[in-house]
């Protein structure tokens, strides 16, 4: 008897949970409401079977409960009943499958005249490419990928010159226009998924996959990677902004083309030297850093990292948190660099400074630090702590150890990395979870010190 009650109870709970679930399909923002329709059809068919079969079973358990004076009915088979049940199941299957296949056919066949955009996945970030004025993508090859050619553009291909390259977490799409999203990966499998769009597809290195949709609602939606791609899988987040056509055009016009990236002038260290005078007040004439003034060592850090941080300070992505006192000091300093050229110049000058290891100020359990460093930090920052440009991980070893400690604390407390535009800082806030307390942090930094 308890079993009968339990089965009926579980059926009722299942139905109630379904009817009153606070968790249901995230509001749709694309043309794929037909997918939702097939889900609903499937729910009706399977829901009916679930309720009917279980209640029938509960009734049977109740009605035919054990009684020592009664005998079971001896009934090896009942061909008619079995044929009916088979036919009935077949009808249910067709009712679910037929609409599903029709919708799939419309998913497979991209409408003529759809716009094209390319999404590129790599460990653990997104970037995007638009075909430019000619409407044709230039060819790409992994062999061309380098720090100055992140997209692997073929420099010989004239079609590629006007390709718009978006090296940011954010892509834009115009509303109400069908778009074919071409999907490409530089390294491992990824998956382009936006729950509000309903459709998703894996990105496979060595081939180009696709999906298509028509965004129907202006808004901003999160892009999630949904194919396991390594330890940063869960922080591989992007954003798709659906704009009006006008806003989209404005946004697109502001992006750089491949041709633009080719003509970018290298920074001029001579000019940068004069701008560095201001920096040297705290960071030292040789960029060696100064613990008393809370200024970390700069010399030897890679250009792309210094440029990004200066830009972050300028744009308020860093140095605006109320508890980030030292960052707040830095922000106005960065603001004195008027434009990208100024940043390029000062960074170019820093590259000329001698890279001597910063003094050791942090002691800790090196063995414990190693155990913490290798499986997590070491994957992006490299086992030798020299950093990996491809995953936007700066060099650590030989830099100011007290500064590393403070930054790890900041990531843990949310002082750094919490800004919505700080996509790599966001990744760090998750990765520091393995560092239990300040002792673990000093251990890791002590190990980083041992790598120099």
């Amino acid at each position: 008897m308890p079993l009968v009650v339990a089965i009926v109870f579980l059926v009722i709970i299942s139905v109630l949970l379904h009817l009153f679930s606070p968790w249901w399909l995230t509001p749709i923002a694309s043309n794929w409401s037909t997918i939702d329709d097939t889900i609903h059809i499937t729910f009706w068919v399977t829901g009916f079977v679930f309720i009917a079969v279980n209640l029938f079973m509960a009734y049977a358990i109740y009605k035919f409960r054990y009684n020592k004076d009664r005998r079971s009915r001896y009934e090896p088979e009942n061909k008619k009943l079995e044929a009916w049940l088979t036919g009935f199941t077949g009808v249910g299957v067709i009712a679910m499958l037929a609409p599903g296949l029709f919708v799939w056919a419309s998913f497979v066949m991209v409408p003529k005249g759809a716009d094209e955009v390319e999404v590129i996945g790599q460990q653990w970030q997104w970037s995007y490419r638009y075909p430019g004025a000619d409407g044709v993508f230039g060819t790409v090859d992994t062999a061309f990928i380098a720090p100055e050619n992140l997209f692997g553009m073929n420099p010989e291909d004239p079609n590629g010159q006007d390709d718009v390259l978006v090296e940011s977490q954010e892509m834009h799409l115009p509303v109400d226009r069908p778009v074919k999203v071409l999907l490409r990966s530089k390294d491992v499998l990824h998956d382009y998924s936006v729950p509000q769009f309903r459709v998703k597809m894996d990105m496979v290195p060595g081939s180009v996959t696709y999906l298509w949709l028509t965004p129907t609602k202006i808004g901003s939606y999160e892009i999630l990677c949904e194919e396991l791609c390594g330890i940063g899988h869960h922080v591989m987040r992007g954003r798709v902004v659906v704009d009006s056509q006008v806003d989209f055009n404005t946004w697109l016009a502001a992006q750089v083309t491949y041709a633009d990236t080719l003509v970018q002038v290298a920074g001029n260290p001579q000019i940068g030297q004069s701008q560095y005078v201001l920096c040297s007040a705290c960071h030292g004439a040789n960029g060696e850093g100064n613990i008393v003034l809370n200024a970390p060592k700069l010399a030897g850090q890679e250009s792309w990292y210094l440029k990004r941080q200066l830009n972050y300070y300028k744009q308020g992505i860093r140095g605006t948190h109320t508890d980030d006192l030292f960052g707040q000091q830095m922000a106005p300093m960065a603001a004195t660099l008027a434009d990208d050229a100024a940043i390029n110049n000062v960074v170019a000058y820093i590259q000329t400074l001698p890279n001597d290891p910063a003094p050791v100020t942090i002691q800790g359990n090196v063995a414990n630090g190693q155990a913490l460093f290798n499986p997590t930090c070491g994957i992006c920052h490299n086992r030798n702590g020299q950093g990996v440009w491809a995953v936007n991980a700066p060099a650590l070893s030989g830099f100011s150890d007290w500064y590393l400690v403070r930054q790890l604390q900041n990531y843990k407390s949310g002082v750094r990395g919490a800004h919505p535009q700080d996509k790599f800082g966001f990744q760090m806030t998750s990765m520091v979870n393995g560092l239990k307390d300040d002792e673990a942090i000093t251990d890791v930094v002590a190990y980083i010190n041992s790598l120099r």
Partner: protein
Amino acid sequence: MAYVPIADQDHALHDPQSFITKYIWSQDHKVIAIQYGTIAILVGLLALVLSGLMRLQLGYPDSFSFIAPSNYYQFITMHGMIMVIYLLTALFLGGFGNYLIPLQIGARDMVFPYLNMLSVWVYLLSVIILMASFFVPGGPTGAGWTLYPPQAISRGTPGADLGIIFMLVSLAVFIIAFTMGGLNYVTTVLQARTKGMTMMRMPLSVWGIFVATILGLFAFPALFVSAVMMTFDKLLGTSFFMPAMVSMGQPLGHSGGSPVLFQHLFWFFGHPEVYIVALPAFGLVSDILSTHARKNIFGYRMMVWAIIAIGGLSFIVWAHHMYVSGMNPYFGFFFAFTTLIIAIPTAIKVYNWVLTLWHGNIRLTVPMLFAIGFIFTFIHGGLTGLFLGNVTVDLPLSDTYFVVAHFHMVMGVSPILVLFAAIYHWFPKITGKMFNVALGKIHFWLTFIGAFAIYLPMHYLGFLGVPRRYYAMGNTEFMPDSAMALNAHITQVAIFVGIVQLIFIVNILWSLFKGKPAGSNPWGATSLEWQTPDTPPKHGNWGPQLPVVYRWAYEYSFPGAKDDFIPQNMPPEDVAMLDGAGKYKGHSE
């Protein structure tokens, strides 16, 4: 000359002489079954602990500093692989296959006892290699149980250097063990059935195990070759699965390989694997339901053909795991069609189980509770499979918690409920002792309700779009706080249900030593294993004379018969009838 089954020939009976040959290097199928079962359960407990750890991280993402992202991905990978291969496959086929096949078909042993012994020791070796991967530099692989390249063997994935190699080698060794065992099971079923035991008189347990083993013999080679090829890609720099790619900014030397090719091979194994686990479960649960409902299994022939049909179809549905893998999307039409077709024989099995209860005389014993619990969770898990099998519906749900909830309900909870049912059902035969019924019932209720409470709401996280295999959700916009709270609740229940399994372990160990003697046929069952002269059955199973079979395995509540069951080996003239019922003339299929 009269036909003498191999196992019945005098020279084939190697009676064990010493403790070592009796319990360690034993060639007796029953001892080997227990060895298989013990190893599988022990390694399964480890996988259970791993799932608890991963649930801790999911429910309380910022609280456990010993679970770094790399640890989390290692936990999910090892949990999945151990549960699917080293627990479920090994326990159903190596454990129950070994124990039941010879006993249920009336044989003295497997036809190749020495090979059988090798099988279990090679299986143990594969487990040892797998365990060793926890201790190599970098730890075990964290590539997910599907081990998809390129990430399984490239930077950014835990254990991409040594852990993955240990995993691949362990799988290859496991497959060798399985092949030794599997050839044995198939040959034994085909060659060693006793007189009168036609194929269509075999208990459904044997049918399920038999067809599952055939599936395994065809499917595991695909995994074997992919393990070998991935090992070559990693160690020798070949490019079976590795395209030209840039790993962490460094171009790798590979070119021309196809990651999708691996997925085809993996799922060509992986989908039949679902049925390698499910078909034995179907078989065992059929026998348990019939016995405790005191009624013949309904539609026996249909049940057999359904097992065969499901087994056959399971080889042409594999790419439904790959609808969003980037394979040619036109495949979706074919695989959605075949996948939903397979629902029909599966549904027939469910109907027939329920119809077996109809007009039965249902004893809610502990094994019966678990068996009925299985029907409930299997209906649920089977129906959600219709969502994922339908290619269009799979688009939003693929790679979300809906998938996790679905396959745990259908391939985790359901077969494990059957395993518990089967262990409780055959425990009296295996040990000669009866288990503690009260503990068994507590174990059932907490496990059954608890498991449903874990997985039912999880489906709705999937509808929301919450992706699986995420170390932490962070501030995901479309996830309301209530969904995060739900994750914490699921974790609490999961930890509770995990701890509840100790009741089972305690019950088994306690009953093993202190249980009451069970007698030879406590359930009043018809199949041959309950008719052995000794309980537990001795080496050779049947004493001097092999049993002779006169009927199918489901002669329950035959009209007019005195007892409500007639053993398969009872001669028709010995069947006691009620007064006035006339002579016994039974089902002769």
